Structures are given as structure tokens and as C-alpha cells.
């Protein structure tokens, strides 16, 4: 990375490739006997997948002085996908606290090899620098979700753990786009 490109680590806005901890996904909000019941899922780690140019335009739109005449580049939400501890994924237990059992992935053999070498379209394996203290992890593209942009801006101030540098963030986002645009054929069994 050159001096001219400070990289996403130094950006003061949400950036593609940001990895944040403790991000909430609101499942539903209901009313029961005069009380509001909020059910959400707390994801220990997520990675931001929204296009970085969109995030940049959103930030400019919000902070420009004088304020722009139009505000249509503001984002309502940001796409993220969860990171799971690969040790949990091997055991199919990464969602056990939600009562969900996952497919076990044998550590050795083709299945494990394909997972580690990113040959399974649904998953993206990440090994991050030791100083991040993030265990080897797997992003599950199928579990992507959107988060309110304002909420995520607030969370980022305290919960930003790491920001993927170029070209790793492009790699993960290109694979995500490819996964999203896959075509399920009759009789096939896509993940």
C-alpha cells in the first residue's frame, strides 16, 4: 500500500472490508401485553460488503459543508456478512447458540481443503494478522444481512476490529457478488 493510499484502516467512515464486533441484527419487534419485545441476534464479528464508492458517497453526503442540494446518495442500510470461527464451522456448531446445527466439514480431505482455499462459493476463509486477535474465520455469504447505516456508524466508533486492505477486500466482495448472482439450475443442489 502506498503512502498516497492510506487504506481503509485510516478512513473515518464505514468502509468496505471493515470488520466489526458485536453487531446486532434485529429479528423482529412485537408487542405483547403492553410491552415491546425486541428479538435480535448479536453477531460477534461481521465484515462490510457494501460497495466502497457507495459508502464514500454516503459519507460525503452526510458531512459536506455546505450540505448538498440533493441527498439521494445516502444509504439506508449497509450489507454485512458474519464471520464464524473456523473451528466451530468444522464441527458444524457455529450457530449452536441459535439452535441451528450446521453441516460438519471434515478438517482433512477435499472438503477441508476446498474451504481453506476458497473453492466453495458460499464461504470465504480469512486469516488475519495476529495483532487483530481474530481467530481464523470463515465468512458465510449465505448469511448476509443489512444493518441500519446510522446504527453501524455508531458501532464502528468503538467496535472496529480491523479493515481488510486492498486487494483482499476486493477479493471477498467479488466472490460475494459472484455468489449472489449464481443461477440455481433445476436438479442441482447449490449451497
Amino acid at each position, binding site marked *: 500500500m502506498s503512502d498516497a493510499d492510506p487504506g481503509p484502516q485510516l478512513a473515518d467512515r464505514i468502509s468496505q472490508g471493515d470488520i466489526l464486533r458485536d453487531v*446486532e441484527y434485529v*429479528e423482529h419487534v412485537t408487542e405483547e401485553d403492553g410491552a415491546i419485545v425486541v428479538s435480535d441476534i448479536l453477531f*460477534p*464479528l461481521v465484515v462490510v460488503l457494501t460497495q466502497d464508492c457507495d459508502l464514500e458517497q454516503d459519507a460525503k453526503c452526510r458531512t459536506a459543508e455546505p450540505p448538498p442540494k440533493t441527498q439521494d446518495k445516502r444509504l439506508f442500510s449497509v450489507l454485512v456478512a458474519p464471520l*464464524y470461527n473456523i473451528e466451530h464451522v468444522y464441527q458444524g*456448531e*457455529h450457530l*449452536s*447458540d441459535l439452535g441451528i446445527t450446521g453441516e460438519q466439514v471434515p478438517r482433512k480431505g477435499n472438503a477441508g481443503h476446498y474451504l481453506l482455499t476458497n473453492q466453495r462459493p458460499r464461504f470465504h476463509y480469512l486469516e488475519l494478522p495476529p495483532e487483530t486477535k481474530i481467530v481464523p474465520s470463515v465468512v458465510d455469504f449465505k448469511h448476509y444481512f443489512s444493518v441500519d447505516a446510522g446504527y453501524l456508524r455508531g458501532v464502528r466508533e468503538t467496535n472496529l476490529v480491523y479493515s481488510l486492505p486492498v486487494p483482499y477486500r476486493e477479493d471477498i466482495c467479488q466472490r460475494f457478488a459472484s455468489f449472489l448472482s449464481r443461477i440455481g439450475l433445476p436438479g442441482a443442489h447449490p449451497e
Partner: protein
Amino acid sequence: MSADDRRFDREYLGSMETSSKIEELGELLPQAETSGKTKQYYGARKPARRTRKIKLIYERR
């Protein structure tokens, strides 16, 4: 709905986030931790569901 009711709803709903009248009845569900060396690292925990029940207390002015 009368104008007063609408005003009440608007004022009440608008103050939900900061009102000290909100009682948090739910407790955070415990987060699972793995044992062993990965415990100290981010990513040791798993996604967990959290349910909060917010009791509404109406206060007529």
C-alpha cells in the same frame, strides 16, 4: 383518534429511546465461549439470540 391522542402518541413514541420510564425486563442471554486457547480472541464466541422486553409505562400529563 383525537388530536390530543395523536400528540400523546407522537410525544410518547418519540421519547422511547431516551425515556427513563423504560424498564428493561430482559437479561442478556449468556454468550457461549469456547474453552482453550481461542478464548481470548475475537471469534471465540458464536452468534446468540437476545430478547429484550421493554415495559411501556404511560404517563399522562
